[in-house]
């Protein structure tokens, strides 16, 4: 989250995080991790309860009693919820980058361009380090020249629609790919209308990393996780359709271990 603070602020958005930790524990954490945004102490879980997200499955005598069901609200300028990201599994968290990407379409710098026929491709997303169990959004940015189109999913008549599929891996679970809204193109010559994409558009795929046990064995020597997939498309201009192309795309995710550093003993929550 700290890495994305500037991008969040650039969108005119505030940023604050609430936990049941004391002010002292939050201060220790903020100093250690060089956190510049607001961490709020809800030590008696009053606000957590007021929001209706008190975790009531934790026993009263546990040091963890008082924690919330974790997640993120996206609020408008009036404090009204316009988006929310909560997961069923308490271990899984959306990365800030993933939320920024999906909610606001904030694009990071294109990570790398990929050579391809008829159009320009860049892969984006996964720049900031991620942890096991986190979610990260990967993007394929496509730019077509004028008068060129590719077919959108749902096209009939033997045309090859654009598709993207990540190679399955025990290290992550991929959501279905998100496509933008397609345009309808009328092909006069054959009196057909077809769903297409033109100009510049982006495909998104959000993946959920597995736990540390599953991810660790698949990291390379630098501690990075390669994530690969195939993009398939058929490009056509107003004269002809070209043979379908398959382009292999790759992301390299830097994976951090869980942060297991504790606050000093004297500050820790007892019961």
């Amino acid at each position: 989250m700290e890495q994305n603070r500037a991008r969040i602020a650039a969108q005119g958005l505030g940023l604050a995080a609430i936990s049941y930790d004391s002010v002292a524990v939050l201060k220790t954490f903020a100093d250690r991790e060089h956190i510049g945004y607001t961490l709020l102490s809800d030590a008696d879980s009053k606000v957590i309860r007021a929001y209706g997200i008190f975790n009531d499955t934790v026993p009263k005598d546990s040091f963890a009693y008082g924690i919330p069901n974790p997640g993120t609200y996206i609020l408008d300028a009036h404090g009204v919820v316009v988006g929310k990201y909560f997961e069923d599994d308490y271990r899984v968290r959306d990365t800030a980058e993933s939320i920024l990407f999906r909610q606001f379409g904030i694009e990071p710098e294109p990570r790398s361009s990929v050579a391809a026929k008829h159009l320009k491709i860049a892969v984006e997303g996964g720049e900031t380090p991620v942890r096991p169990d986190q979610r990260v959004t990967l993007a394929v940015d496509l730019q077509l020249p004028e008068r060129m189109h590719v077919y959108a999913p749902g096209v009939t008549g033997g045309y090859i629609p654009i598709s993207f599929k990540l190679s399955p891996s025990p290290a992550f679970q991929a959501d279905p790919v998100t496509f933008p809204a397609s345009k309808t193109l009328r092909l006069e010559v054959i009196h057909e209308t077809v769903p297409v994409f033109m100009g510049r558009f982006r495909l998104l795929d959000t993946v959920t990393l597995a736990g540390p046990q599953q991810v660790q064995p698949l990291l390379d020597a630098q501690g990075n996780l390669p994530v690969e997939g195939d993009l398939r498309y058929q490009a056509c201009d107003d004269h002809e359709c070209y043979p379908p192309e398959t382009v292999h795309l790759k992301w390299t995710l830097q994976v951090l271990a869980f942060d297991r550093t504790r606050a000093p003993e004297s500050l820790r929550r007892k019961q």
Partner: protein
Amino acid sequence: MNPVGKTTAWVALAASLAWGAVATGPAVGERVPDFHLRDQNGAEHDLHSILGPKGALLVFFRSADW
């Protein structure tokens, strides 16, 4: 934990597992409750103070310690 408390805890756990989803608070379209909390430097904040011109991300997390 006394026997009644234990039963209540198990019922709550079973219920949350049976229904699948955990409670996630205010829905899209609802205004979130106001709050008055201190930050890591002891400064006080309320909902209004954390909202930027376009809104805010408000994150609830389990703990900064563990």
